[in-house]
């Protein structure tokens, strides 16, 4: 399996994750149950005329992808691959509401045009005038990992040497109220103390746009390497450890070779049960990291998780705010990321220093 290199990052999240080093200005929101992104100054990236017509997910996607390209010092790429769980729900919601409230009359196409899941990928291509491969994955918690998997496969096939990969999701009011009704969102934020020991269902919801420039060649500016990505639809809880063992073995690694494990704890007791056994047994003596208490949970929150993992390798340090345990390592060479939601759509991502 060939390594690919992460050469650029762009992260718009509910935390200050641009113009900062690594979460030094972050804080856990212990009040709200729906977190909003920390807004960039859009006009520095998008003309105000274009910006007015764009939903926030599209804007955030453009800003995050621009930041990633800048860091990688690239003008364009050989492929643009995005992942999104819910897609452009702000515009979907707007158009659907107009249909229902006006009995299918007096509609304008703008919000329909921008409601498709691939709007962000299409708009980035339009902005870069990039006619290359362009794809959008929409499969819940593995939407982003599908994009990363595809990017890696393209490089193995010698079909691309640089790919822009991103995960984007946005919140929208009515959809959030439905999610709350269905119990996906907690009634109240129970604070950090109970986050890892949650005894309730539901999550604190978030949104974000996280982009990576991955390239086949290692450069002086390369930040980290992606060794492997695996996606599985269903896995029983008692098989997780074995599965991770075989995933590591296929990369000639053992549990002990993992310098830090980044887990997708989201505060939902049922989802978190999948991570508990890893925290308490498999990786009990390994530095453990969580991040959804900062980003909130959403379908592509794991892209934020990869950003955290990549930053750990880049800075060779784990900020206290994302530490699950107090174990430190001198060097962080190999990091495993594991994410799933409610026992469906599992992803295993292995990254390392270059």
């Amino acid at each position, binding site marked *: 399996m060939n390594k690919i290199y992460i050469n650029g990052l762009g992260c718009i999240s509910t935390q200050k994750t641009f113009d900062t080093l690594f979460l030094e200005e972050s804080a856990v929101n212990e009040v709200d149950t729906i977190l909003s992104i920390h807004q960039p100054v859009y006009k520095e990236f998008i003309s105000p005329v274009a910006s007015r017509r764009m939903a926030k997910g599209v804007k955030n996607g453009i800003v995050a992808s621009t930041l990633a390209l800048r860091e990688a010092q690239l003008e364009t790429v050989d492929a643009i691959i995005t992942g999104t*769980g819910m897609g452009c729900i702000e515009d979907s919601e707007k158009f659907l509401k107009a249909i229902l409230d006006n009995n299918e009359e007096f509609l*304008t196409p703008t919000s329909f045009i921008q409601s498709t899941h691939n709007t962000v990928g299409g708009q980035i291509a339009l902005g870069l005038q990039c*006619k290359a491969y*362009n794809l959008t994955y929409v499969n819940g918690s593995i939407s982003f990992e599908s994009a990363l998997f595809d990017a890696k496969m393209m490089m193995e096939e010698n079909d691309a040497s640089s790919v822009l990969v991103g995960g984007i999701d946005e919140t929208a009011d009515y959809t959030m109220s439905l999610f709350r009704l269905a119990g996906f969102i907690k009634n109240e934020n129970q604070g950090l103390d109970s986050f890892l020991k949650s005894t309730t269902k539901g999550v604190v919801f978030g949104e974000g746009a996280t982009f990576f420039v991955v390239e086949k060649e290692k450069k002086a500016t390369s930040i980290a390497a992606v060794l492997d990505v695996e996606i599985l639809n269903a896995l029983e809880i008692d098989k997780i450890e074995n599965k991770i063992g075989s995933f590591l073995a296929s990369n000639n690694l053992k549990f002990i070779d993992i310098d830090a494990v980044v887990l997708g704890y989201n505060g939902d007791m049922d989802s978190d049960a999948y991570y508990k056994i890893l925290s308490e047994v498999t990786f009990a003596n390994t530095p453990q990291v969580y991040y959804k208490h900062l980003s909130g949970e959403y*379908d592509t929150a794991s892209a934020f998780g990869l950003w955290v993992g990549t930053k750990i390798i880049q800075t060779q340090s784990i900020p206290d705010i994302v530490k699950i345990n107090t174990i430190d390592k001198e060097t962080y060479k190999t990091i495993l990321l594991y994410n799933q939601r409610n026992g469906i759509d599992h992803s295993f991502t292995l990254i390392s220093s270059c």
Partner: protein
Amino acid sequence: MSIGVAITGMGIISSIGNSVEENYNALLNSQVGITTIENIVTVHADVIKVGEIKKTNQELMDELGLGKDNNFSRTAMLGTIAAKQAVKDAGITSINEYKTGLISATSVGGMDMTERYYHEYFENPDIVKYISSHNAGDNTDKIAKELGLEGFVTTISTACSSAANAIMLGARMIKSGKLDRVIVGGTDAMSKFTINGFKTLMILSDGYNKPFDDNRKGLNLGEAAAFLVLESEELIKKENKKVLARVSGYANANDAFHQTASSENGDGAFLAMEKAFKAAQLKPEQIDYVNVHGTATPNNDLSEGRAMIRLFGENKVPDFSSTKPFTGHTLAAAAAIEAVYSVLAIQNNAVFPNLNFETPMAEFNLVPQTTLKHKKIEHVLSNSFGFGGNCSTLIFSKSE
């Protein structure tokens, strides 16, 4: 020529039939599926015609044996029916025996239920179960569960080219050995959301769609699901499988012109076709039939036609037809049902007619095949384009 990836099973449900055989018979006998809408209440019912599957959700639930507390969207039900047919057709009995994946495609996901219950959710606890069905991935997860498939599962959404990309990804994963077999395709149910969306864009025809006709007025929307089973050479040999046809070429390019409109010269379409030929190691003159995207919108047919002329050469475009006068434009499922039709064209040496065509377009000298034509067919090219500038081309070939 590259050997291509083997297709060993197919399943389909569309407005012209509930099985591969029914769809084939309809194509042979010009039985059109475009009718007045029945399953959705819309103010546009009298002015639009659609390719609707004449089964109610209850009938689909009964057919699938889903319990009363199920929360399947229509998209998930259509997808499950087609995927189960494909798996059965491929003779697969133990789905997790080999490394097996599922790659679906959808544009609306569970929108049909969301729009039906949008304002009712807060009053009626019985329907709250449908909130989670909106997510596109939930529809695919349900299909996977119905198939008992636990491995690699993902979903692609690139609007109207979605299923072409699902087939492409599946073929690539087989070729690279990441999977032994994979079920690929797409599913989209009719929804008020898409009806009104295309209506506001003024690209819905008030009659029957007429692809590549000078007087074309737009598309008829349709709903459908179709899946193909792709398998590795190793598995074909080991299990002595019958190969229906092969996916020999595939490509995806972006028009990078406009969010919803295609460029006048069809740059994206041209690039996709060109790249697909490269992947297939075939020359344009080897194509016997082109199943065009041919939505019958003024913009698409002009753009696609120009791209074909650029690629094949003036007066050298092979026999081509759009099958959308039969089925309507089934969005994310379109490339999947047209993949089934492409395989049927190869198996039966038949070019299916481009119905409703009368007058050639003023801009170029392109006349589609308007009647059923039997001739030797080795290679079929199928185009699919979507919002966001997405252009995808697949090439299907006879298996030696």
